[in-house]
């Protein structure tokens, strides 16, 4: 863990991701949609493998619930200037 270019950056990130996964899960967004993997610039193959695996996991989970939440009859109503 200690080999972060900025000494402890990765430690801080590790904690935050651990926290965020739980919070997302609580509001109903699957924790698997957030993933953290330590990859150094030398580990290209691991990087490719990880991303591919992540994409497959997401495909299995289906579209993000935030997108699905759009009720059919409700217009995009993206912007309601109060």
């Amino acid at each position, binding site marked *: 863990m200690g080999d972060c270019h900025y000494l402890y950056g990765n430690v801080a990130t590790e904690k935050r991701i651990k*926290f965020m996964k*739980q*919070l997302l*899960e609580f*509001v*109903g967004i699957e924790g698997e949609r957030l993933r953290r993997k330590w990859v150094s610039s030398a580990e290209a193959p691991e990087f490719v493998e990880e991303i591919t695996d992540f994409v497959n996991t997401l495909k299995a989970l289906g579209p993000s619930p935030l997108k699905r939440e759009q009720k059919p009859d409700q217009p995009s109503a993206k912007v309601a200037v*109060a």
Partner: protein
Amino acid sequence: MIEKVIERVKELLEGGEIKGFVGLCNKNGHTAPYLFTEVAELDHLVVGDFQNPGDARYPLNKLLIDLYRAYPEEKFGVLVRGCDERGLNDLYVWNQLTPKNVVAVGIPCPQELADACGCPKPYPDNSVAEPIAEGAEAQDLIRMEALGVKERFTQWMEVFSKCIKCYGCRDICPMCFCKECSLELDELIPRGEMPPEIPIFHLVRAVHMAGRCIDCGLCNEACPVDIPLRTLYKKVGDIVYRKFNYRPGFDKGKSPLNVLENK
């Protein structure tokens, strides 16, 4: 109980130990946050049980911060319940107040209020009276966690969509002491939209409650559309406690999320 509080405050005021006491006062037919400076005013002092227990609680620590920022040399007394005292401890950690500027006068909460709040410790350590209630389970949190992911999602999105972006949850919160707030950062949450971007607005606030929220429930009471914010921030506190073994207001020092080493 009120007599004991009045007695204690009288002692502090007459002894000149404090310049004023931030408490609650029966004024204009309402319960008002008030700075008592004369002993004579003390017979209007109330503890915030207007019609039923704890229904007129105010973020007195926030007034204390305003006073401290204007008069850093002065010492003030403040009426505290269990949650307010946790607030004070946490505000010391976040360097917004210092113990030498504050004298807390504590009162315990009744069981009925403790249950309604699901409060872990419904009594302050230095209190004018013995605790009269034990800690209660966070029922709302348990109920919510019992639901499946899909159900939780629908419920939260539904309540979040009612939000009218009044920033009341932030403006009432005794632990929100920043001058400029990230919620008003256009790049993070586009401004001028009501409801604000869901769920980004509410999750950003929840993240900022990590290592800070003392579970006092004032956000719930300030939300005009009754979003169960307290349940959300109780979950935040629960995660910080289970994952990092830290409870704001209980444990010394900053939460592991705000410290670099691998604690």
